[in-house]
């Protein structure tokens, strides 16, 4: 169970403090999915980064299964990212020096939850079985995104955070990738929090929230 309570976050810029999140509240129960929509700069990605422990909140609380993220040391946050969540980025962020097979299994092995059969299954499902020996730069954008999804799900995380996972893909590829993502999330039983600009993709998820000027639209938390 993920609970975000009254979270504030601002960044220091040359022009002064820039508030990005101004008291965000949301909840995501285990096994459910949530789409987060909003204009560019509305704070969607920042909220995702805060939940992933990539950034720290200025005030407010983020609770995971009742345990707060704030106050944790960097090593504990790293462990949270390693073992608690799966992350999918718009830019894929694969490790260029490792081949597809190593990229797929990387996080699961870091988390100590390596299951070769499951990874083989993921590779089959994601259409990557014939590409395992290739390096990321030898793949198309869609293929790279599928590797990123496989990597994120390989450790069967309790929570999958996806930041515009199909932002770089055409419409047909986006739909296909999302189909796969939803199917695999359902197989693993993970919760899914996805940032997207597309109302059509958002409609495929259980719930949708809108973030405007750093706040969840009233009545939509």
């Amino acid at each position, binding site marked *: 169970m993920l609970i975000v309570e009254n979270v504030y976050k601002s960044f220091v810029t040359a022009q002064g403090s820039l508030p990005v999140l101004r008291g965000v509240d949301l909840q995501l129960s285990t096994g459910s999915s949530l789409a987060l929509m909003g204009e560019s700069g509305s704070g969607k990605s920042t909220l995702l980064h805060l939940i992933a422990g990539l950034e720290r909140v200025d005030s407010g609380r983020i609770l995971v299964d009742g345990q707060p993220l704030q106050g944790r040391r960097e090593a504990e946050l790293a462990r949270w*990212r390693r073992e608690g969540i799966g992350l999918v980025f718009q830019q894929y962020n694969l490790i260029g*020096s490792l081949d597809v097979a190593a990229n797929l299994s*990387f996080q699961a092995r870091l988390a100590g939850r390596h299951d070769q059969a499951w990874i083989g299954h993921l590779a089959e499902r994601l259409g990557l079985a014939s590409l395992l020996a290739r390096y990321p*730069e030898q793949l198309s954008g869609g293929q790279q995104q599928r590797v990123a999804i496989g*990597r994120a799900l390989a450790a069967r995380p309790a929570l999958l955070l996806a930041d515009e996972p199909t932002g770089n893909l055409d419409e047909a590829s986006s739909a296909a990738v999302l189909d796969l993502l939803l199917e695999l999330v359902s197989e693993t039983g993970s919760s899914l929090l996805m940032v997207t600009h597309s109302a059509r993709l958002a409609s495929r998820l259980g719930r949708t929230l809108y973030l405007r000027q750093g706040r969840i639209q009233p009545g939509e938390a």
Partner: protein
Amino acid sequence: MAMLRISLLALLSHWRRHPLQLFSILTGLWLATALWTGVQALNSQARADYARASALLAGPAQAQLVARRGERFEQAAYVQLRRSGWPVSPVLEGRLRFAGAEPLSVRLLGIEPLTLPPGTVVAGQPGGASDLRAFIGPPGQAWIAADTLQRLGLQPGERALTSDGQRLPPLQVHTQLAPGVIVVDIGHAQALLQAPGQLSRLLLPADFAVRPPDLPAALAELLQLQPSSAGDDLQRLTDSFHLNLSALGLLAFLVGLFIVHAAIGLALEQRRGLLRTLRACGVSLRGLIGALAVELGLLALLGGLAGVACGYLLASLLLDDVAASLRGLYGAEVAGQLSLSPQWWLSGIAMSLFGALLAGGNSLWRAAQLPLLALALPQAWRAAQSRWLRRQALLAGVLLLLAAGCWRFGDSLLAAFAMLAALLLAAALLLPALLDATLAVLARHSRGPLAEWFVADSRQQLPALALALMALLLALAASVGVGSMTEGFRQTFVGWLDQRLSADLYLTPRDTAQALEISAWLAGRPGVEAVLPNWRVDMRLQGWPVQLQGIVDHPSYRRHWPLLEQRADAWTQLAAGQGAMLSEQLARRLKLGLGDRLPLPGAEGEQHLSVVGLYADYGNPRGHLLVSADWLRRHWSEARLSNLSLRLQPAQVAALKEQLEQRYGLDATRLIEQATLKRWSTAVFERTFAATAALNSLTLLVAGVALFISLLTLGHSRLGQLAPLWALGVGRTRLAWLSLGQTLLLASLTVLLAMPLGVLLAWCLVAVVNVQAFGWRLPLHVFPGQLLQLALLGLLTSLLAAAGPLWQLARRQPADLLRQFADER
């Protein structure tokens, strides 16, 4: 023109955003040029001084008559030749000693200005231009260089006092005169050198010497005609020393260029976008390459100017050591101050431009060839690198064959250095391939995701770090090689000195008469165990200056004169006047071995002796020959008793020394205790290698800077590679440690390869280069402690080079890492 200016301004704007890269390129060019020009400054100063020394009596007097045997001949020969119509002019040469805090030995040149061949230049001035009356005296004049005057601690017009208590004519400074030389009238010279009626040579105008009449029969036995060669001797003797310095300077220059190459290559990668935009805006390829070339030229000019200025400074700092080495080893005088020609400054700048072209030419070519629209793809780069690695390995194989060929068939110093250069270059070219292969093996054996990433990522970094690692390999191998050679030489030299300098006191008499008198006096003294006279004749064998030393038969030679090779009855044959022993370098030069017959030009025709022994004679650039004293005096009546080695009871040394000083007026330059002589010899040795050690350390420093700059410039792109790992749960501190581990892994492998390469280099130096340069071969010593020390120094250099960039990484804010997820890569 406008296009070039606009393109250039756009290109230069890159450096405002990347000042570190600009600093790297300028630092590389600055260091490379500084080290190269510094060495060249030392060499050109020394060569200019040799030229001045050899041009003391320059001009038409290009030929001379010299004694067939020995160093001097009677003045009567000169008188007889003048009467026969020969336009000869007499010269007497010798050395004067001056006592003082630092005893000084100066070459004295006595000339007869009235008979000098017309047009002869004396000390840079026409012979007739000076006030001859004042020169001939009384009291006469002693011409001296400002530098030598300073070393004597005297002022112009003062009269120097020799250690024999003789006063020179008033000193007059001549700026064109070579250092370490005093020119006086021949009459004064004969008095000062205690050689009344003696001459060293007779100068002849070259046109007369082309077809000279036959010498009178009596004189033909005494004299022979030969071209002037004193300067050539010095040049030949010191060539190897200067070549060694040049080789070290060139190595440092190349290592510095590695920095430039790495930084320029990175700037090209980062400016692909800019180049693409410029092309899209209508700048022609030619215009673009022209702008890049102009930019490179500007950088080279800036770096070159700084480099030449620092080179001058470096040379000034090292000049004292180099001058002391040249004086100690070769008796060559080099001024203590630099005075360099404008050509030297210009050639330094030209070298910087050449270096920049060499280091940046590849980038210019790539800019012209590569599709600029393609994005940088690390794995594709690595794939392209694999092809390069294969080509490099092939080239390295060819170079190794070349090195083997030079070793097997080469018979010159140039071939020896070509072998060294080929070997080092081959090793440097092979390094990336060897590292890649080692990492491939490690990759197969690594377990765990981070271990796999660690090795895979190290392989991916390899192309960017290869040049810096090559620089580290070369610098370390040079340090190991030269260090092992120097340390081995030191041990051999000290052991050899301990054996060879076994007498308690060494006495250099004023002349043979004094030596005989002292011998007779010592014979009856209590505490004197043995007086060993050394008779000496100087001659030339196959054009090479050789000292012929005659010794008496005494057991101490058998005990203390270390031989490299000998026949069973070597000392007996020598004592019987049937055998001779040769210094190693002379034997090599004359191509003689044990049992061979050695022809020597004696008074009654050629004498032959059998070679019965070979010995080391380190530090002596001239040939040395050991024969029986009786045999020598029988065949060379002019042989002089040059010194006495005294074996004394330890308790009597101080007392006897004092008595000798008082009774015969011998000063510290003529009476030296064993310990003092050893200390002096060791000091000369240390100073000889001081410049080498300094250049070595600087080269290692440059390699460290190369690695530092490569890692620093890699820093930004590394962030993009490390950020995903951080996002996946690897902490920043751990990432910093892993990155440090990667640098240390690559550096350790390089250091590991540098050690055997350095030992191989040491072998090349002692067994090939030394033999060609000096004529002696040293045993190869490997010092594990020294290797460990240098290995640690190499790792420490790498650690320091990696520390800065890693510190930056460890201090990165999460926001910087997050930005990697938002930026277009």
